[in-house]
């Protein structure tokens, strides 16, 4: 009960802070950055359920993100479906793909699992590039309408941002609720020891598939919202490198911490904006920060924050 109240409270505070953030920012431009932060955070939180909690790697999450973006884009722009329906179909479609993919894939583990998900991501990326009639090919697909619900418009970036904050808060809330339940314990048990988890009556195959589908669904929601924000999609946004970036967000944020994933996503999205002033050495600094971050904050931003809290108030129970 206490954990639940604390989660509810933290999610509310988080949403309110994000909603109020644009008031403190001097420029509309920052809203665009925040929007990308929120989108990345949605995917990262989902991936963290899979990677951080259940200990299963996926190098294919960019593909789920991209599949949903394209599906919703094609359904609304080319087929003329209402946006909300297109979005719903796209998310469902991605969930189905993840479920089907999960059946053979989770017979694998470790590096082999990484390869299988990576391969899936690459195949999807190739199809996006080559199925020109459907996707518009490498130069992308234009004419995707801005997200709207019956009676609600999100034409202005600020209103779109508010929508994203609410969705992100919901995703965070769902994740926290799951983590602090039998299901969350099952996820971590699978990570801790698959044999012991089985001996405790946990169906590890089902558990892995469940969290895989769930994290794919979060990625899909983000993908749909991405496509209808940018009003444009191109395969290059959904490649292997984005999958790697997502993993980095999760690990740098702190494995097995929902808030860590959010922090990692925000940090890694905003960082290039700060490094931009350094022009040519931007990439160098980015790489160096990554290496240094992992060396000096082995449990990520969340671990660092926890340590800081621990220093401030030495006796604390559960984290």
């Amino acid at each position, binding site marked *: 009960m206490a954990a639940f109240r604390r989660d509810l409270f933290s999610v509310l505070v988080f949403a309110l802070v994000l909603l109020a953030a644009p008031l403190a920012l001097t420029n509309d431009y920052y809203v665009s950055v925040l929007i990308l932060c929120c989108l990345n955070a949605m995917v990262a939180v989902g991936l963290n359920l899979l990677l951080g909690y259940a200990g299963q790697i996926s190098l294919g999450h960019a593909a789920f993100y991209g599949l949903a973006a394209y599906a919703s884009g094609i359904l609304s722009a080319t087929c003329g479906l209402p946006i909300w329906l297109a979005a719903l179909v796209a998310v469902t479609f991605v969930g189905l793909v993840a479920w089907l993919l999960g059946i053979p894939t989770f017979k694998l583990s470790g590096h*082999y699992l990484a390869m299988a998900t990576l391969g899936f991501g690459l195949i999807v990326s190739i199809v996006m590039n080559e199925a020109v009639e459907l996707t518009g090919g490498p130069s992308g697909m234009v004419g995707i309408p801005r997200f709207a619900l019956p009676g609600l418009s999100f034409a202005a970036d600020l209103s779109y941002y508010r929508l994203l904050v609410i969705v992100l808060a919901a995703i965070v809330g769902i994740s926290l609720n799951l983590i602090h339940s039998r299901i969350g314990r099952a996820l971590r048990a699978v990570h801790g020891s698959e044999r012991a988890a089985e001996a405790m009556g946990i169906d590890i195959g089902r558990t892995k598939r469940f969290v895989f589908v769930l994290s794919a669904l979060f990625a899909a929601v983000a993908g749909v919202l991405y496509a209808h924000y940018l009003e444009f999609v191109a395969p290059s946004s959904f490649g292997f490198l984005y999958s790697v970036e997502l993993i980095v967000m999760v690990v740098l944020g702190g494995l097995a911490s929902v808030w860590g994933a959010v922090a990692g996503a925000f940090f890694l999205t905003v960082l290039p904006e700060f490094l931009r002033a350094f022009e040519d050495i931007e990439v160098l600094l980015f790489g160096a920060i990554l290496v240094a971050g992992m060396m000096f904050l082995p449990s990520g931003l969340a671990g660092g924050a926890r340590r800081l809290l621990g220093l401030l108030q030495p006796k604390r129970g559960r984290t």
Partner: protein
Amino acid sequence: MNLAALLQYLVSGLTVGATYGLTALGFTIIFNTTGLINFAQGEFVMLGGMFAVSFAHLGLPVGLAVVLAALATTVVGAVMERLTIRPVAGAPAINLVIITIGVSILIRGLAMLAWGKDTFALPAFSGEVPLLFLGAAMQPQSLWVLALTLSLLAGLRFFFSHTMYGKGMLACSFDRRAAYLVGISVERMVLLSFMIAALVGATGGAILAPLTMTAYDVGILLGLKGFAACILGGLGNPFGAAAGGLILGVLESLGAGYLSSAYKNAFTFIILLLFLFVRPTGLFGRSSGERV
């Protein structure tokens, strides 16, 4: 079916496959000592090519340029291990993998600053007059590549099964603590594995440069294909890595020739996935690495 064309596809596939196999060998060496996938392995290959081009531009003979390039990259490998891997020894594998990703970004960035964004070519070692057999044409350089792949493979096999250092490195991958207890310096073995991986990768990169050309960003794709080759062959087995690379290359070439050049990579990866679903630890794999 045209036999000459089929033969040409096979030859082309083997040539490309050798480039994947060479990269894959480097992965194997570090994996065998640390259980780690080094994402900067592709950058070692890139550095080999770029250094060789630079040395050749200085007017050195190509052979010397290749040797110097390999040595220079070995130093890079050693520095990488000392600065970024050793200080965090014992960290979770996923953290180390992220560190290698960071290092690869760093090396790529440095290479971009040092050499610019252009593509460079290195002159072929023994000219560019194609060799013909049974209607299939092949660059003399391809023979160099295949020969190098095979001799590296033989060398590594010998190293891992017949030398103290090689056995010590293998012991580290099975059980670090036990290796330490029987008097093997795990630290030195890890350092050595990064140096050898860099050496192998760079030699490959330098020998490939006349065929494939080189630029600061060729490491990403090579790393990706090299990793796929490792997995297909079964992680940790040098023979599997080389075989995996050659198989991938031939699959791509046949896919491009008989199916669709647009989907040749998709075709290759679908086969790889189906294969993994049937054989979850690759062609010659021992039990899967559970570290990630």
